[in-house]
């Protein structure tokens, strides 16, 4: 059985696509056959973050409309053999996504032997976002430690609990995970930023990880390489920890406490 995971947040710019790229890559690196679907119809960006933008021929809407089959539309990742990207359409509008169409794509992916299917949700609570979460078995709710992001995350949790198939059919609810991104331990210590514990207390769902704020994320997107591939990067390590926890391995949280830079570091610079 393929597991469908939606990466969602409500608010834009919190790190959904970065997270989708890194988590799908991480699962593929662990040996799982993984597909990642961009649901942001009209504003596709996952292809850029994954570095496959020049290889897009067909997209999700083409497949939904039967203009192309899945094998034609799936793009094999340049780093991992068992990772495939299904891009969003850049030209159509979001009404082209139908529930039956999406369900069929997911079923077909399952028949192709995929273990995990990640759905990269668009921002907002409109059709694209609802379609991305409708068939989810698990949800990774990405939230920044910031008021508007936390509030929107709570809204999207409400939608998960009312509009997902699992909720409508009264099956076991969607398994929810909280991922706090763009976290700055120093600002938390200074009382300028909500702590991950605050965010978790407000949203009341289990925490799967904390990704530190880092310049590396921009460096990764500049090159079209998912951040999890970066060498010696806290962000990459934090995403690997998230993968481990997702697979039920025990990993203590890292990068959540601020360490004062030592005298040498302060004299000679460095991050």
């Amino acid at each position, binding site marked *: 059985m393929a597991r469908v995971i939606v990466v969602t947040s409500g608010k834009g710019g919190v790190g959904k696509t970065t997270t989708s790229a890194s988590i799908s890559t991480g699962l593929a690196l662990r040996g799982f056959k993984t597909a990642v679907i961009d649901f942001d119809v009209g504003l596709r960006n996952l292809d850029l973050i994954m570095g496959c933008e020049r290889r897009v021929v067909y997209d999700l809407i083409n497949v939904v409309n039967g203009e192309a089959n899945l094998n034609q539309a799936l793009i094999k990742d340049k780093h991992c053999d068992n990772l495939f990207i299904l891009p969003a359409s850049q030209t159509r509008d979001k009404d082209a996504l139908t529930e039956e169409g999406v369900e069929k794509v997911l079923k077909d992916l399952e028949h192709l032997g995929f273990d995990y299917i990640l759905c990269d949700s668009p921002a907002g609570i409109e059709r694209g976002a609802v379609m991305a979460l409708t068939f989810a078995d698990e949800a990774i709710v990405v939230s920044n430690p*910031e*008021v508007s992001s*936390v*509030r929107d995350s*709570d*809204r999207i949790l*409400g939608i998960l*609990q*009312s509009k997902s198939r699992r909720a409508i059919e009264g099956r076991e609810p969607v398994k929810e995970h909280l991922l706090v991104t763009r976290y700055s331990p120093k600002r*938390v210590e*200074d*009382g*300028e*930023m*909500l*702590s991950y514990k*605050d965010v978790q207390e*407000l949203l009341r769902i289990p925490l799967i990880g904390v990704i530190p704020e880092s310049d590396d994320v921009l460096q990764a997107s500049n090159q079209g390489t998912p951040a999890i591939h970066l060498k010696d990067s806290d962000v990459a390590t934090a995403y690997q920890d998230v993968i481990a926890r997702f697979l039920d391995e025990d990993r203590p949280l890292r990068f959540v406490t601020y360490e004062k830079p030592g005298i040498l570091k302060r004299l000679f610079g460095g991050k």
Partner: protein
Amino acid sequence: MSLLSYFFGNKPKTASVAKERLSLIIAHERGTNRAPDFLPDLQRELIAVISKYVNVGPDDIKVQLEKQGNCEILEVNITLPDQQPK
């Protein structure tokens, strides 16, 4: 003392202000957005039944679902009209 606290800043940190504001607004929105779908219907039918016996209007009944810990409380508040001499 007040001069010291002025310089060293005893004002609440913005993060705790954020948390307090969020906990209020989230609790409020959970109440309104996550109300089960049957509430409006329940309210309409209650009005229909009660107005058979007492003269009440649609605005005289308030149905609310509140959550306190693990316990859900269905609150039905009916305002009866003042007794009118027959």
